[in-house]
């Protein structure tokens, strides 16, 4: 067993880290709250760099990489609150498997695709729809693709591009796609959890920095066990989240039997871990953590929304339980 990434993957992640720190970040996320628009770095750059087509096969114009590499990039994207989500890109790649013509349109950026949940005519709130030209949805048992009308509400996290969609004039992209739809959703869950991992890790770093330097009653607040232990618990959880994310991402390509449990585990664990880390940060920062000016709420917003996207904690915990029990039977 070798449960670690290799040097090439480390370098790749480092490269992604640099890119996202230059082309996304909290300033961009903050600006979106006042002025709606496409999140940074945006679809065009992600397409150009090949990040959004990482899991699209080479013969369809993509990079043909494994999901684990996508997860490593997503972690760095999450750290900078980047958008649109690579979870959407990964989900599209799975849904259009075998439709190389359409995948090529995606890989080259000719169409900007988001996936909508719920009814195609009046979808549930879905991610990355504000920057999309085309939408994928499940209509009965078939996968359909087409344009649609997007309605945007008041977003808690403006980087997620959440809205509802009414599709019209859709064509059938694939017949009998229910199983593929499930798999695509779990792949997206894995990548969303990877983004949450990167964001949560940044959040704990911010909490540690502040706890080391801020003094009260004559000593750093990080020396008080009530503060220290809360931060440690978050750090431990993030370290464990990394294990689940890597495992799920690896299993997507190498262990299809275990993948559904791994993906749901990563998504559920991320929901709680990321949210708790953000709540710790806001609290440890004291009054400044509650201000609009500080970055803390930008991560907090992401956590509060991500935990509900692609199925909440309850949904995924229940899936883990049901799948584990059915393995016994």
């Amino acid at each position, binding site marked *: 067993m070798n*449960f670690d990434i290799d040097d090439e993957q480390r370098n790749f992640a480092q490269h992604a880290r640099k890119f996202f720190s230059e082309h996304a970040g909290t300033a961009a996320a903050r600006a979106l709250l006042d002025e709606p628009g496409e999140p940074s770095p945006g679809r065009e750059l992600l397409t150009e760099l090949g990040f959004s087509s990482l899991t699209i096969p080479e013969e369809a114009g993509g990079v043909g990489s494994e999901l684990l590499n996508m997860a490593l990039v997503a972690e760095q994207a999450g750290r900078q609150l980047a958008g649109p989500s690579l979870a959407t890109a990964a989900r599209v790649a799975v849904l259009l498997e075998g439709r190389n013509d359409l995948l090529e349109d995606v890989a080259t950026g000719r169409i900007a695709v988001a996936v909508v949940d719920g009814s195609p005519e009046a979808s549930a709130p879905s991610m990355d729809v504000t920057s999309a030209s085309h939408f994928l949805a499940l209509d009965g048992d078939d996968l359909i693709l087409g344009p649609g009308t997007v309605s945007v509400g008041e977003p808690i996290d403006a980087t997620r591009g959440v809205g509802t969609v009414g599709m019209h004039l859709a064509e059938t992209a694939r017949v009998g796609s229910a199983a593929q739809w499930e798999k695509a959703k779990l792949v997206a869950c894995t990548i969303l959890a990877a983004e949450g991992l990167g964001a949560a890790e940044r959040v704990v770093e911010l909490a540690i920095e502040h706890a080391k330097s801020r003094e009260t009653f004559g000593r750093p607040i990080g*020396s*008080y066990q009530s503060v220290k232990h809360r931060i440690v618990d978050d750090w431990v959880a993030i370290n464990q989240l990394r294990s689940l994310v890597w495992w799920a991402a*690896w299993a997507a390509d190498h262990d299809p039997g275990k993948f559904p449990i791994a993906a749901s585990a990563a998504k559920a664990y991320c929901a709680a871990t990321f949210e708790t880390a953000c709540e710790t940060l806001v609290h440890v920062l004291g009054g400044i953590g509650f201000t609009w000016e500080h970055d803390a709420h930008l991560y907090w917003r992401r956590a509060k929304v991500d935990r509900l996207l692609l199925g909440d904690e309850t949904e995924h*915990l229940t899936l883990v339980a049901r799948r*584990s029990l059915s393995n016994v039977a």
Partner: protein
Amino acid sequence: MDFEDTPEQERFRTEVRTFLAEHETELDHGDGAYLEEPGIDRINSLRKTQAVLFDAGLIGLTWPREYGGGDGTNAQQAVVNEELHRARVAGPVGHVGLGMCGPTILAHGSEDQKQRYIRRLLRADDIWCQLFSEPGSGSDLAALRTKAVREGDRWRIQGQKVWTTLAQHSRYGILLARTNPEARKHRGLTMFVIDMAAPGVTVRPLRQMNGHESFNEIFLDDVMIDDAERLGDIDDGWRVALTTLMNERMAVGGGGGEIGIRSDALIAHAAVRLPQLPAERRPLAYEALGRVLVESLAARYTGYRLQTGIEKGASPGPEASAGKLTAVRVAHATADLGLRLLGEDAVFSRSRDGDWRWATSQASVPGIAIAGGTDEVLRNVLGERVLGLPPDKPRSQEPATAKTNDR
């Protein structure tokens, strides 16, 4: 990244699996590493289990061959651990010796000590215990007061130890005692091997809240130890003890192994019990089960990452403390859910159809959260040594309390 066996590992796995199947009747089994039925003492059959495994080369695989080990790799050991787990073989009864005393002797003992002790320790011919905690020093171990005073080639030991697991069955122990009361508290300690049959050693089992007698209090009245039984240098016992403690945190949860009841036992239990719940309770039970299983998977796969590091040659660092923290949390949640799934019978120590595992585990987990570093001490270790957060208060530079509080 790769979770599959190499062809060589696969061959080895088959060998181990075949052996465990063929010798099933000579081995004890169970649903958790040290989960024992109340009122049943199977220490002798557990010793036999360890001996059978040792004779087959499955215990001490990574230990040096000249002392009875197998000179094997950590990767092979991982295969063995997985197969033992798969076959539900009971955890080795000599776990204190294997996890803590043995590694300490290998690191700090003389050639003569290694020759005399290691092989018998691996085979559970001798059970070992660890005489560290005292009534006045638990988490603050370095404040211990048991004295060792040099008399020629021997040391005279006077003091008291407590929470000593397996002492009543032990032939030997490793003993941390104060040899220099003038020095700062971490500086005046020395480690010894103590013969538990020596005159002046009195062992009194303590009954715990789970009804078992796993640990003991020990009185040491003028016990004489040869200087040749010293482990490491005089007054260097703290450094020696750190070897022990680091191995302990790896042994208890750090390597991703489960403590408490196995998650597959919980799944099997839930498969029977959950469908019997009233319909309106089932959604909550599914969610609760999912939560325990996810925590368990998170801890297990984090252990695999740590294990990979060790297979690549890293030594267990303070990060291993996180594994113990999370393993305890999983054990607690597993016992609690397993018990609640018994429904009305959850108020009994044993359900009416004889299931004692959940109530026993429920009453055992509180001890694991204390043993081998309390949750709070482990969080301090992680916060200060891994995350770089400042200590609670400046560490005392005062000499040890041994002198002023002499008994």
